C-alpha cells in the first residue's frame, strides 16, 4: 500500500466530508457530517450545562465482527 495513496485517501475524504458530502464505500461504510444541536445537559447533582452546537463526523458501517467469541 503506497503512502501517496493513504495521503490522497485522507485528503480526498477530508475535502469531501468538509463539503458536507456523504462518502459511501460499499463493503465498508459511510462517512457523513452530522450537526448536533445545542442542548442542555442536566447532571444529577443539579448542574445544568449548555452544550454548544457542533458538526461531527459520523461513520456508519454494516460490517460486523465475524469471529465473535
Amino acid at each position, binding site marked *: 500500500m503506497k503512502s501517496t495513496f493513504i495521503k490522497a485517501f485522507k485528503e480526498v475524504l477530508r475535502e469531501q466530508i468538509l463539503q458536507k458530502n456523504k462518502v459511501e464505500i460499499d463493503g465498508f461504510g459511510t462517512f457523513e457530517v452530522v450537526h448536533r444541536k445545542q442542548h442542555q*445537559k442536566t447532571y444529577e447533582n443539579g448542574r445544568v450545562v449548555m452544550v454548544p*452546537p457542533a458538526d461531527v463526523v459520523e461513520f456508519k458501517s454494516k*460490517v460486523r465482527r465475524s469471529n465473535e467469541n
Partner: protein
Amino acid sequence: MKIDRAKLIELLVENTGMAADEIDSQLKQLIDRILDAAERGKALEIKEFGMFYFDESGDLKFDPSDELSTEINFKYAGMEPVELKPPRSGSDDEDEQSDEPAGTATGEDLDEIFGLDDRDDEPIEDDAEGPDGGALISPPDKVDRDVDPFSGLLGDASSKLKGADKPEGESAEEPEEAGKEEEDPFSFILEDEPEEPQSELDTEESDDLDDTEVEDDEPLFDLDDEVEVESDEPPFALDDEDESDEDSEEFFDPFSETDKEEPVPMAEDSAEEEEPVTKSSTYKKPKKKERDPIMLVISIGLIVIVIVAALFIIPDLFDSSDDVSQQPQPQAQEEAAPPISESPAVEEENQAVLTPVEPEEGSEVTDDEPQAEETLDQPVYGLMGDLVDSANNGYSIVLHSLQSEDRAREQAASLAADGYRVLVSPRSVSGETVWRVSVGQFETLQNAQAAAAELPSPYSSNNFIQRIQTN
C-alpha cells in the same frame, strides 16, 4: 452530494495521478487491512484522520482524529459548554449524571450565550424555573427543615441547601461549614486543572507540535500505530455517551470556575448576615467595649515604640541600601524590616502584587498555554513575515480562490509585497482545480480566526480558514 465508490476512486485518481485500477486495489487493500486489524481486536489508526475498530457489540466504529473533528467543526470552533446552574452543594458526591434534558431554558438567555436560534425544544421543568437561573430546586422536605430565616431571603439555592442539610440548632457552626463550602469549589478546580490540557483544543495543539516535523518523511501509515485493544475491554470508551460526557466534563472546568464563584460570595454574605445576629456578635461586642480603653493605651504605646524604633533603624537601612541600590533587593528590606512600621506596608504591597497574579494564572490556564507557546514560537507561526516550513502543520486564512494559477500567483505576489506570509495551494473542488491564496501560518484555528478578523476590510469578512496542506 453523495460520493460513492466509483466517484471516490475518480477523485483519488485525480489527486494521485495513479491509474484507476491501481487505486481500486489500493482501496481494497486499505479496507482489508482496517477490517483485518479490527478482526484481531486491534484499532487501526490513520494519522491525522482517525481510528477504526470494532466496538463491544461487534460493530465497526470510527473515531475521527482531533485534527479532523476540529476541522469539521470549524463553524463552532471556540464554543465551549457553559454552565447555567452550578451543582447543588448538598450532593457533591454524586457525580453521575442523567441525560434527560431539563432545566431553565429561558430562550433569551440561551440566545445571548450562543447567539443562535437552533436550540432543542426541550421539556421545561416547572419547578426548576427561577428568575436568574437559580433557586427553588431544593426538594420540599429540605425546605421545610430550613430553619434559617435569612438564607431564604438570599434567594440562592445553594445557600438554602447548605442550611437545609444541617440538623437544627447547629447554626453556631455555620461559619466553619460555610468556610468549608467555600473552599470546596476551589479544591475541586485545582484537582481538575491538570486535566484541562486534555480538552480537545489543547490536545490538538500539542499534537500539532509533536507532528511538526513528521509531515512528509515518516510513513503515514504504519502498523506500529495499531493500538492493542483487547476485544472485550478496549482502552477507550466505546460508548459514545460516556466519551462525550467525559469530554464535556473537562470542558466545563473553565466555566465552573467563573460560575462557582457566585455561590461563594453568597455564602459569605449569609455567614456574615446570619452570624452577627445570632450569637457571636452578642458576646463579642460588649467585650470589645470593655477592653477599648486598655487596648487604646496599649496600642498607642506600641505605636510610639514602633515609631521610635523606626527612627533609629530607618537611617541605618537607608545607609546600607544606598550602597546596594534599594529596589533590586526587596528581600533584604523585608528581612530587616519586620519590626518597623513601614514593613507591613511593604509586605502588603508585595502580597497585593502577588495575589492578583495567582488567580489570573488559575483562571486562564487554558489560554495561557497556547499564548506562551506562541511567544516562544513566534517566528514559527504568524500572519506576517516569511513562510516557515515547520509551521505547515497549522492553519491558514484563504483570501482568494482562483481558477487560474497565474492570477493566483499575481495575488500572492501583491500580498507578499504587503508583508504577509503567502501560501498558494491547488485544491480540487468538485472536479475542478482551484488555486487558493492564503496568508499566515497559525498553530490553531482560534489564532487564525482572531487574525482573520483583523485583516484589512475587503478580507476581514471575506475569507475562510483551511488546514495547510503541502503536496
